[in-house]
């Protein structure tokens, strides 16, 4: 019987440890913000109290580090706990449609318009913008640095059949990239055009390893630049490359279990003077330039968007 009692001893020790750890983490999560769930299934994020709200946003706001500043500030100011789902814009909008999120912070204007026209969102406000840039190998085989616009750059890359990594994941960045190809009537195909199906950070890494071009938002590029030893900015400053973020409230008329007040509080915060100041300052000490430009109160037309 001695053998079995040792076994029971070990099992009960493991069980007690497991229960103890679970109890401890329950106590601490009351006071700390919930961690971001990247690429997780929407049903994994549940509201456990009226003070919880689910924010569905894109990988670029997460990868650039902006959320790590904005969310704690909002939680402090409002008392709400934000559960952030950092997924592609495609999934973020779908989560809104399925009533699995309370508020969205996305940057895919065409898809957002479809979303609003279908009535899934009750309010959409401009928050901020940054810009997309084309990055590529220092050697620049397609001679993109000689071009002056995004569409010229893409034409050059297609003509040179230079390696290009696409997000291929229906994200905001991917939508912008596909719109650019469409603008020059090119359907990219061939071994040179590769689709990573991953977030911006991972895609930049792949482009770095493969000495390939890619379209990226400036914020993620700056945030990960130290790990990208062979990528440089080859094109920037085209008006076509504006990357605009909106905050969308999911329509309570279409969904019954939303945290409507929490969603409104978040949306109000990001366009408030305090929120906009945080956005405008983000990145200055680390990169010498702000990663996002605050735009609350302006309309799409002010930024030159249709």
């Amino acid at each position, binding site marked *: 019987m001695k053998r079995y009692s040792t076994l029971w001893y070990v099992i009960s020790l493991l069980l007690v440890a497991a229960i103890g750890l679970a109890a401890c983490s329950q106590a601490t999560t009351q006071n700390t913000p919930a961690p971001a769930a990247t*690429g997780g299934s929407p049903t994994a994020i549940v509201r456990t109290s009226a003070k919880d709200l689910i924010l569905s946003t894109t990988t670029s706001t997460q990868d650039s580090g902006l959320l790590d500043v904005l969310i704690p500030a909002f939680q402090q100011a409002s008392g709400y706990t934000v559960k952030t789902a950092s997924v*592609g814009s495609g999934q973020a909008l779908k989560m809104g449609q399925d009533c699995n999120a309370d508020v969205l912070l996305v940057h895919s204007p065409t898809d957002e318009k479809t979303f609003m026209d279908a009535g899934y969102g009750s309010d959409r406000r401009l928050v901020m913008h940054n810009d997309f840039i084309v990055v590529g190998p220092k050697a620049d085989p397609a001679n993109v640095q000689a071009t002056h616009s995004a569409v010229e750059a893409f034409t050059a890359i297609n003509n040179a059949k230079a390696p290009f990594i696409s997000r*291929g*994941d229906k994200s905001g960045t991917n939508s912008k990239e596909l719109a650019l190809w469409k603008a020059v009537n090119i359907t990219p195909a061939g071994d040179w055009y*590769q689709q990573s*199906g991953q977030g911006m950070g991972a895609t930049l890494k792949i482009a770095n390893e493969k000495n390939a071009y890619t379209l990226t938002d400036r914020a993620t590029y700056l945030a990960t630049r130290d790990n990208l030893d062979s990528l440089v900015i080859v094109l920037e400053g085209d008006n076509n490359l504006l990357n605009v973020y909106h905050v969308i409230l999911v329509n309570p008329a279409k969904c019954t279990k939303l945290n409507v007040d929490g969603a409104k509080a978040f949306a109000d915060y990001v366009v408030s003077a305090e929120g906009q100041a945080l956005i405008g300052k983000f990145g200055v000490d680390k990169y010498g330039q702000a990663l996002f430009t605050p735009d609350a109160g302006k309309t799409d037309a002010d930024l030159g968007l249709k």
Partner: protein
Amino acid sequence: MGLIWEGIRNAVLLMFSGYSEVWEITLLSLQVSLLATGISLIIGLPLGTWLALGQFKGRHFFLSVINTGMALPPVVVGLWVSILLWRSGPLGDLHLIYTPAAMVIAQTIIAAPMVTGLTVIALQQLNPRLRLQLLGLGASHTQMILALWKQARLPLLAALMAGFGAVISEVGASMMVGGNILHQTRVLTTAIVLETGKGEFAMAMALGFILLFLAYLVNATLTWIQQRDVQR
């Protein structure tokens, strides 16, 4: 519930519609994981046998390291292998990063400790006098090992199934070292993460069912081999 039924239906339709991208992804999953499991077997079986039957200093320590290897998080393995294979890393000149070969390497590192550790147990639970009896009957060293393996084939096949199960289902290492690149390194698990990220849950579920079915086919075969001639 609707999503689950839709998933099963779409899985069947996908498999038979000849949608070439799905076949490509499925084939690559199978190739990479079977190869990784095979290599783990080639490494793990002799190594496990040596650990089980050998007498040498540090055997206990080595055994505990192997057992710890069974608890290695796949995503950590992916990270280490990535660091080795990046151009900035020591093995960067081999240009293996973001290739199926890199995925095989990472998956082998995940499966090998499992196969090794379970082989050790499989052989240790045999009657120790069996070994002496075989040698006493005039068996050569090789013949003895082969006879012991045959005697322990039930737990050994379970070790193989555990190793295969660990790698066919893992996504962290495959994502990091493979890159999920379409037509190159996209496998079922990484494709499921992608489709979920796009909001295409029905497609993700369908791929999930294909993965389950694949795992079932392989394990059904191994189980049949395992359970043949078993006295019950």
